[in-house]
């Protein structure tokens, strides 16, 4: 592994506010360490900008372990960049070469309005969950956890869908800006668990309807979402969502 410092040319989307006009701005970094994470390179750049009296670049980030789902960058046109199953925060500069030019843009979707620079508003996702992404059970009074047996196979499938981090890469990658992978993953998780059974129909209908209302497009099976998902959630989630939705129309 080379520890040689690299020169990286960045073209970063800068936009002062929700209603301002944005543009790509050029920055050149001549001291990028290959062991830096992509976001650490931005920290580094921001330090330099501030020391020159320029405004730093705003971007969302928090856990930097690929689990909170805060970070969201289109890197050379790919949501979260070139490394498979990796959120931008876990992408390291060793994935790039000395002299590379990298385009960095925010998620682009009607339902994710830009707040500033690379920061977008993903509250539409919360509203989709609010529409039905839960089991209606109050605190207290639950039966013993082992009272209901769940086959390991079903529990594992439910878990795979439940690993969604809500980052929105699926929407950003989709030519239709569809939130079907996000919505489908939650519907499918509960469709594989007995706890989800009583509200199965209402949930599917309400979440799909909300998705539409938020301005996300529909799915046309491009499967771009699956390709960029940092948790590798399978597009079968969308097939499950469709099945659940159709079934929900017949009471």
């Amino acid at each position, binding site marked *: 592994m080379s520890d040689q410092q690299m020169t990286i040319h960045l073209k970063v989307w800068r936009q002062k506010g929700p209603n301002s006009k944005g543009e790509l701005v050029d920055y050149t970094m001549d001291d990028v360490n290959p062991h830096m994470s992509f976001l650490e390179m931005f920290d580094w750049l921001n330090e330099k900008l501030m020391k020159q009296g320029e405004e730093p670049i705003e971007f969302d980030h928090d856990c930097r372990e690929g689990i909170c789902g805060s970070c969201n960058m289109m890197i050379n046109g790919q949501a979260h960049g070139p490394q498979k199953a990796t959120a931008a925060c876990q992408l*390291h500069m060793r994935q790039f070469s000395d002299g590379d030019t990298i385009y960095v843009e925010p998620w682009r979707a009607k339902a994710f309005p830009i707040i500033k620079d690379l920061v977008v508003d993903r509250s539409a996702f919360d509203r989709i969950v609010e529409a039905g992404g839960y089991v209606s059970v109050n605190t207290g009074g639950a039966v013993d956890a082992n009272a209901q047996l769940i086959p390991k196979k079903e529990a594992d499938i439910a878990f795979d869908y439940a690993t969604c981090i809500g980052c929105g890469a699926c929407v950003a990658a989709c030519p239709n800006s569809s939130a079907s992978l996000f919505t489908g993953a939650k519907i499918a998780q509960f469709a594989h668990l007995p706890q989800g059974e009583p509200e199965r129909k209402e949930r599917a209908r309400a979440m799909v309807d909300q998705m539409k209302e938020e301005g996300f497009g529909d799915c046309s099976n491009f499967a771009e979402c699956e390709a960029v998902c940092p948790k590798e959630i399978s597009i079968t989630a969308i097939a499950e969502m469709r099945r659940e939705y159709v079934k929900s129309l017949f009471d």
Partner: protein
Amino acid sequence: MAQTKEELFDAKIPEGPLQEKWDNHKNSLKLLNPNNKKKHHVIVVGTGLAGASASASLAELGYNVTAFCIQDSARRAHSIAAQGGINAAKNYQNDGDNIWRLFYDTIKGGDYRSREANVYRLAQVSNNIIDQCVAQGVPFAREYGGTLANRSFGGAQVSRTFYARGQTGQQLLLGAYSAMMRQVEKGKIKMIPRQEMLDLVMVDDLARGIITRDLETGEIQRHAADAVLLCTGGYGNIYYLSTNAKNTNASAAWRCHKRGAMFSNPCFTQIHPTCIPVSGEYQSKLTLMSESLRNDGRVWVPKKAGDDRHPSDIPDDERDYYLERKYPSFGNLVPRDVASRNAKYVCDEGRGVGPTKMAVYLDFRDAIKEQGLDTISGKYGNLFDMYEKITGENPYEVPMRIYPAVHYTMGGLWVDYNLMSNLPGLFVLGEANFSDHGANRLGASALMQGLADGYFVIPYTLGDYIARNDIKPVSTDTPEFDQAEKEVRERISRLLDNKGNKTVLDFHRELGKLMWDYVGMSRNKEGLEEVIGKIRDLREEFWKDVYVPGENETFNKYLEYAYRVADYMELGEVMARDALDREESCGGHFREEYQTEDGEALRNDEEYNFVSCWEYKGEGEKHDIHREPLEFEYVTPTQRSYK
């Protein structure tokens, strides 16, 4: 020594035998009838496990809840990153576990610096938590027969840890978050993301509201309520490099502290032994590797200082498997604090490895030889992948390099048995309070405590407070709100107008280094006395020379960062003072002067069997210390030994 304010530090531990205290207490709590609950309004700050579970549970009971978080969605709170699992005394494995054992292990693990009654209650409600989470559809790991799976974790002798692969925190938080969103839909919770609490407002000596900043627009807002629940997590980020998320901070807790809430045991911090080491100056945070790796990995460094050979070129007789050598019966499985300290010692001796020499090897060569590559990959595959992603090295071929990192803070705001601080109406839940983990937290206990507080304690104790105090609505148009808002605005302006030469990150990194070097894994009197002066100097320099870009009326992450680091500059001094005052070693607090002949933490139960409670005395003034004595009626404190 200041006088103990007994009236302030009545922990309100209920009467009766340990096993009956919580039930007795519940019987004596006043109830609010359902129609009255609807008339009351509660503020919840933070939406991690504690905040989300409390918000959902209180809303279900009928209270009107306004919940705040600094992230863009409640689902992103840092509880999401917890890997290992959650403990409960279910005894599903028939291995002799019960509530008493979970209680005993937690008290002992905390090195006898927590309250018996609180910890017993925690163990009691642990079973309800698992039931509740399963009912919500949390996909815990299961056996082929369909029952829940358990594992032994953190050296426990029973298998009581429930888990969802390495993402238990995520699954539990999404469960609590979805319960919350259900109440948002019903209109019982108003969820306000990207909003940060910047002050607490006291009216007539009761906590009645908060001042917040909208992180998108910079708008300063006032919010009033009948009680304030602080669920804002710990302060591990003060060390700059830690496993905590970048935006975690102590500011909400510190603002409450400056309004009179006592800060307890600030020096009790937990350093986790198995983290990926620092690779360079640009490093922004550290990543934890589950400590389950120590079940099969062997920890070593070269015997000779400065040995630069590739690890596979170093023969066995030139390797020092120092944990196995020093602790033959526990070997690589010694508790977190012992493993961490010993890594520091060998690195201090110049025997550290890797480019920075601040790391030790965790080697799977022998485990792979004995058990086969497939078995090891089956157990740790996802962790090995994560390691490779971050370091670019393949741990199946080259030993992992690990080093300790700050992970959790046991200290926090003082609370009584009802989780109420010494300020009436201010409740503190989860990692933000000091209450259950003593001087050291056991693995898989943080998730348990966050959910215990939110699902099963606060729904009872909050109603009692409101019923007893006849709380009437308050307006935000009062002199107290005016004053608090004015102070918040002045502080922000002062930061923005400063236009100094050093960035917030420059200061945070310097403070973090001081804290790590002097108030980290190993502390001594001389160093602590010295660092107090250094922190004061740095704080002074911060206010003179910090540069904060931009303006208030916009999305401005570096402004947020600035006011959080400003608060750390004050908290750091209190942490050092607490560490200086506590002339003993216990749990995560290791004072070099107080150790056994074997180098183990040496407690002083005669003089230091108490909870320290630090009182803010005004800007630039020294804090006062008060002490809540601890009593052990049911367990006898013993000296730990892992030889």
